[in-house]
């Protein structure tokens, strides 16, 4: 918790963020009730997409749960909720993680980026997002946020990947529609555009 924030203001903002998020007030009050004695602090501030997000977090809560149901960031999808499919891929300190298999408490003090945090301040799409549109990469679109995040992470580490390197880097993200070719086309198109713009974000 930031020191210049009073506890009352913090709780008020938690409630506000919960209400703004996907979860209902009933969900919030229910979670506040079964607080185990002596457990980790529940009221935490997370760094999500460059913003401070105060939120009430249960000890056993996964990052995907917090993002989706408390912060309203439903772009992070739950395809399996057990680390098989990659639809919930987010960046934690620039490294890809399955948000379904990570406790929210473990990201305190770390920078989390979700698919919603990739557009720049003017709302312009990240080059990966634009390239995915141009290559008609998504089909049903459910795995797309995870594919986008995995591709962004790859291009930060390797601005000029081969198709084979891109394939390896995205191999933790399943796509049942089988849009793999189009995603790889998108990654390579984005890489090319980013190199020509000198922009490796």
């Amino acid at each position, binding site marked *: 918790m930031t020191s210049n924030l009073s506890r009352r203001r913090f709780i008020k903002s938690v409630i506000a963020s919960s209400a703004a998020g996907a979860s209902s007030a009933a*969900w919030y009050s229910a979670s506040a009730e079964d607080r185990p004695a002596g457990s980790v602090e529940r009221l935490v501030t997370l760094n999500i997409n460059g913003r401070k997000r105060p939120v009430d977090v249960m000890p056993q809560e996964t990052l995907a749960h917090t993002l989706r149901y408390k912060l309203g960031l439903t772009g992070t999808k739950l395809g399996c909720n057990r680390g*098989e499919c990659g639809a919930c891929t987010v960046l934690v300190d620039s490294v890809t993680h399955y948000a379904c298999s990570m406790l929210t408490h473990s990201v305190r003090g770390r920078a989390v980026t979700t*698919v919603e945090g990739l557009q720049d301040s003017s709302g312009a799409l990240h080059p990966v997002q634009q390239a995915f549109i141009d290559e008609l990469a998504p089909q*049903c679109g*459910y795995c797309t946020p995870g594919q986008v995040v995995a591709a962004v992470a790859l291009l930060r580490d390797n601005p000029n990947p081969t198709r084979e390197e891109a394939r390896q880097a995205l191999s933790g993200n399943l796509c*049942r*529609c*089988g849009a793999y070719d189009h995603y790889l086309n998108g990654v390579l198109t984005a890489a090319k555009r980013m190199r020509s713009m000198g922009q490796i974000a």
Partner: protein
Amino acid sequence: MNRMHIGKDFIPPDIHGKVTGKAKYAEDYAVDGMVYARLYTSPMPHARVKNIDAEAALAMEGVVGILTADDVYPTEAPAPALLTNEPVYVGDPILAVAAVDEKTAEDALKKIRVDLEPLPFVVDPVDSLRPKGASARLEGNIYPREMREMRWAGSDVERFVSGQEPTGPAPTEWSYGDLEAGFDNAEVVLEESFVTTGYAHMSMEPRSVLSYWQNGKCHVYGSTQSQSFVVPFLARMLGIEQKDLVFIAEYCGGGFGSKISAYPVLALPGYFSRKIGRPVMLRITREEEYYVGSARVGFQGWIKAGFTKTGRVSAVDLYIVQDLGPKQAGGDASSAGGAVSILYQPDAMRLRDVPVLTNTTPRGPQRGPGQNQIAAVFEPMMDKAAQALGLDPLDMRRLNAPDSSATLNANQGPITSAYMEEALLKGAELFNWSERIKRAGQRNGSKVTGVGVGQGYHSAGASGYDGLVRLTPDGKLHLHSGVGNLGTYSYASTTRAAAELLKVNWDNCVLHYGNTEEHLPWSSYQAGSNTTFTHTRANHVAAEDLLNKMKRIAAEALGGDPGNYDVADERVFDTRNAARGLTYAEVAARAVSLGGEYSGESYPEDIHEVTQRAVQGLAGSGLIGVGKDKLPVRGTVPGLTVGFAEIELDLETGKHEIIDFLAVAECGTVVHPQGLAGQLRGGAVWGIGMASLERHVYDPQNGLPASVGYYQTKPPSYLDVPTSTEWTAVDIADPDNPVGARGVGEPAMGSATAAILCALSSALGGHLFNRTPVTPDLIVNHVSGQGQSFDPMAINSF
């Protein structure tokens, strides 16, 4: 032809939300006061519910209510039940509990005591056909469109399981031609037994649903392949009138046949919400999706095919035991027969079908249901016959390829058009077939090259559905699409047929889709690869109606005959004096003041009730173009594909790499190149899954599924498919579609399955496994000469 839209790529309006995460799938919605439902599913493969004691659960703080089979619409076996007192597979939903949060609902489930009486069960169709075999349901063990009991003699079973010509009775049969004469004319006669695994659809999005009631209307946020087509069925399930259903399915996270129309859990939150007076969200877990999410019909069968000296297919005798699971299913066998009848044009053919119920995941249509299983069986046989006759596998297929005079099915009905030989030749040239096929069987250390070609078919078009377009006084063309957003972008691409006819810039088009409140016309099912053919027609018909009305309005306003008027640059003008005309905006404004049929105050009587409601909702807002597609169609609309594969098989590990893959579409005029590419490549990925990866296994002792996770069922990942897949299309217009298009999504899978299996076979000197999936252990067993670890017809094998 110089076209504005058809054959051109465009940016579909829903894609921005997909890449930014703003797209809302059913589970992403939330409303005030929403509670969460969880399902109590059967731990037994077949049982009778004797008693439900929910007292302790309902007394828990935060628990809001319970829903049982007694609260929902009744069903008659084998129709799918919403909730049941006779669960027929492990995972069958018995009841649901709602609570203020999911954890409480889950905890409540643990406090519910369900007293179950175990009933006999079966997980292998053949076991049910044994003289004392168990029946999957109390009403019977087979479902040839009615439930009944059927058993084979012990000797019939023994012959069948050893892969010999079946002697057991088959309740369904069709045939045409003189089968005996066909085999007499054959130079080569092949007999093979086969097994194709019926594995799960496993869409990425578990099928979550949110429902609530407001002002007497039931709002359902769901995930379905179709949009308007769902409405009558879902309304009937909920026991309400269509006008009282608000159905939102703006995005669907994959369906592949498992979400064609209304399915039971789609109606569950509506029932629950009505009972407890709160909005209800039902989130389905990945494991539950393997239960309620459907699977392909499995085949165990036998086939005998005759080939003349020149390579013509002279006769086919096909016998299929279908694994239907415990509920209504079973068109796959007949569709398989239909596919053989069109792709190879045999002189005579017989299909016998034994549709058997099992206590396994409910089955339903899955991408090319029947056609794609049989592609995995028949195409490798074509290669075996070619080898016996000394023919090139490609020439063998050219010789039998359907053209526009082809016929199909038992009635040997006509088709709209077909250019399969053109597809084979186009692909062969691009793939460099004649050079590559020489490499088949070449060894390089432990690796051996395999080269294969495969064909796919699916009927790919329907007719008789409605189109609805609207021109508003701001000059915008509103395209109302009742087509579901299943990920093919056909909800958008088919509307471009209307924009094409009306010559409207895409920037001036506004798409309406995904929500009944958007006033959407009646539409076909988004399945059976039909949408492209069906809805380019319906949109064309609606646009034609709008065009004629524009001309009449212009003639009325400016003088002359409507026949003197034409359109260009979003103006309707007098062809004798182009300066005399009205802008589209002006025409729309005039339509509003004219009223009547112009602005939707009245409409044709033959449009569907769903479309009538849509027009009523739009009346007075602009110039309405609406109509039912009554354009002629001369027969079945074929979607045809060819796949070419080169693989490298490692004989030591049994694993193979796909070096190159080419998909060829023969689907009439290409409407949306990127979308077609996506379907061909995605179909190839599915084909690879069927050929060599995807499993579906039940424990015969306890009826427990062993395939309830991605890591167990193994859908293809990036690393299982080629680094890039090439595609092309024949692009010859179909005469029965105004833009020349046919559909193609499903066969793209079958041809890929076939090409991979043929390539594997060619790497192994022509050996046929007659089974999907062909996994590395099958290959290692074969190569080491030690035989397989299971009987020829066994299913549920690893």
